């Protein structure tokens, strides 16, 4: 029984230009204490998936299909009050840009204490004690003093530590981190990432790590989902997907990583870019960019099939693994 089991999740945005489907029947699951990576280019639907889990889609987005089973309950159909009780308590979230995540007019202490008090029947003093302890865990110097600070008094890295501390306050079962280091200075990205991982391990927290970076995913996650234009194109155990990628898109992402191929060679970028939701081509959404596309790739969306040891959505998957496709 997984901790979180997302089945055939569908998210739509009704707009003036018609209904945009941001997620098509997306499925994945996270076991207790497990780490799952969601990768894909900008606009693939990664953040939409994250917010759908917490029922926090921005207007006019809504879940129009599927189930989000978490600790035996379907989050998609939960009442407002029940959902509120889960947010920030059982499932926490870490946002991309720490400069925008903390409220500029409230102190760090206020923003931490309120989170605890929203979920626990405890005194202010007790909430403060826990908050200070968490600030210490994320290695913020003189945590007691920081409680009275406003966000702007802290650097980006420090703010993201505060956000991580907030995410851990209530000892959640799952943390969803949406590109938690993308907005940070390159020099501290690795540091923040490893801090987050350490804490997830010591607290036994499950993690959904959303990122563009397959290298990070291969280092820290046990499972991975590759999203393209709102669909899962490849998913499974991270080691298997990374060592044995089948979908040309996943292969493209992997070969674009530094360190792959000949040293010093130009990185292989996938040509073109992902189409916006308003202009998804018929058939396999990836075919206009695919080196292996054939006539039949243009008609009918290929199903997500189990190929050898993981799931792949590609009409030519079997030819590709045999290496006969050109």
């Amino acid at each position, binding site marked *: 029984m997984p901790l979180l089991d997302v089945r055939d999740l569908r998210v739509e945005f009704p707009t003036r230009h018609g209904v945009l489907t941001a997620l098509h029947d997306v499925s994945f699951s996270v076991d207790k204490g497990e780490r799952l990576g969601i990768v894909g280019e900008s606009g693939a639907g990664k953040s939409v998936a994250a917010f759908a889990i917490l029922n926090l889609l921005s207007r006019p987005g809504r879940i129009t299909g599927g189930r989000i089973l978490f600790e035996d309950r379907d989050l998609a159909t939960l009442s407002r009050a029940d959902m509120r009780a889960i947010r920030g308590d059982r499932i926490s979230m870490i946002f991309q840009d720490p400069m925008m995540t903390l409220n500029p007019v409230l102190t760090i202490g206020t923003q931490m204490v309120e*989170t605890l008090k929203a979920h626990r029947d405890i005194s202010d003093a007790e909430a403060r004690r826990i908050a200070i302890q968490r600030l210490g865990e994320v290695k913020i110097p003189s945590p007691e003093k920081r409680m009275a600070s406003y966000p702007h008094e802290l650097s980006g890295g420090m703010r993201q530590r505060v956000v991580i501390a907030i995410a851990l306050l209530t000892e959640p079962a799952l943390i969803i981190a949406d590109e938690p280091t993308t907005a940070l200075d390159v020099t501290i990205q690795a540091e923040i990432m490893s801090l987050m991982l350490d804490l997830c391990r010591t607290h036994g927290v499950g993690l959904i790590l959303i990122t563009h970076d397959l290298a990070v995913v291969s280092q820290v996650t046990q499972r991975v989902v590759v999203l393209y234009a709102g669909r899962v194109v490849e998913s499974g155990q991270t080691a298997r997907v990374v060592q044995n990628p089948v979908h040309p898109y996943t292969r493209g992402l992997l070969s674009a990583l530094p360190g792959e191929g000949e040293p010093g060679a130009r990185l292989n970028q996938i040509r073109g870019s992902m189409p916006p939701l308003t202009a998804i081509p018929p058939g396999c959404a990836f075919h206009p960019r695919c080196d292996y596309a054939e006539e039949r790739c243009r008609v009918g969306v290929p199903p997500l099939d189990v190929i050898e040891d993981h799931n792949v959505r590609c009409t030519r998957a079997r030819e590709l693994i045999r290496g006969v496709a050109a």
Partner: protein
Amino acid sequence: MAFVAFLIKRLLQAVLVMFVISLIGFSIQDNLGDPLRELVGQSVSEAQREAMRDELGLNDPFLVQYGRFLGKAVQGDLGRSYFFKRPVLDVIGDKFPATADLVLGATLIIVLVSVPLGCWCAIRPRHWLSRIAMGASIIGISIPVFLTAIFLIYLFSVNLGWLASFGRGEHLVEIAPGWTTGFLTLDGLSHLILPSIALSSIMMPLFIRLIRSEMMEILEQDYIKFAWAKGLAARRVWFLHAFKNTLLPVITVGGVQIGTMLAYTILTESVFQWPGLGFMFIEAVTRVDTPLIIGYIIVVGLIFVVTNTVVDLIYTMVNPTVRLMGAAR
């Protein structure tokens, strides 16, 4: 320290603006009629007039005269009203409490109505109440204040006979020497209500729209989404996280608008024959009571500058990020 530097800078700016206002006021005096005509009759000969001009310093260069005017002004001497035959500041001081009552009444109404309604419109933009409020505010913005006033008088005073339509009433309470208010008696209040509503109606649509649009923008921010993701109650997200951020821009614009409201008291006070500064000003204009006109401009200018400065200082104290920018400057 940074705050003190900011304070000094802001006060210097205020002094500069007052300087400009006094210059404008003084130029009016220079151009508006001959003061001698008001002081002496037709029978005085031209030679005698010239002698008096010399004596009064009216033949001195502009800058010398202006310097003298300024010197007296900072000591609280703005000359004497031709009509009332009393010092200008005394006349203004007599009229000021009435206007203060009116502006306070209008401000209270604006705050009490626009804050909850503006927030509601932002939180529930599709709700029928929000649609009505938005529609009404478009209409409200384009109705001139005297029409609102006449409609109010017609309905509540003439037709229903509930509220008084002119003056401040008989029963005022003196809260300080020479300072009366109508807020503390039923009679006073019944006189205050209609003019306050009329005056508030000018700014109300603006405030509702301002609060709504600011709050809607804030509600889209990441930190609000994060507040939801923390599982906070809706009340806390709206009225602490969002509202506290909405307040900052609203204080800035709002403070300035309250200053502007003083200018609108001229219309409101005329319609309701409210014995305040605005009514006094209209009368001073018809009587070409130049010292009183100038006195009004300078006093209203001063109030305007003071409110703006105070608003800026409050803004700086409420907003932690501005404080930092002050330090960086």
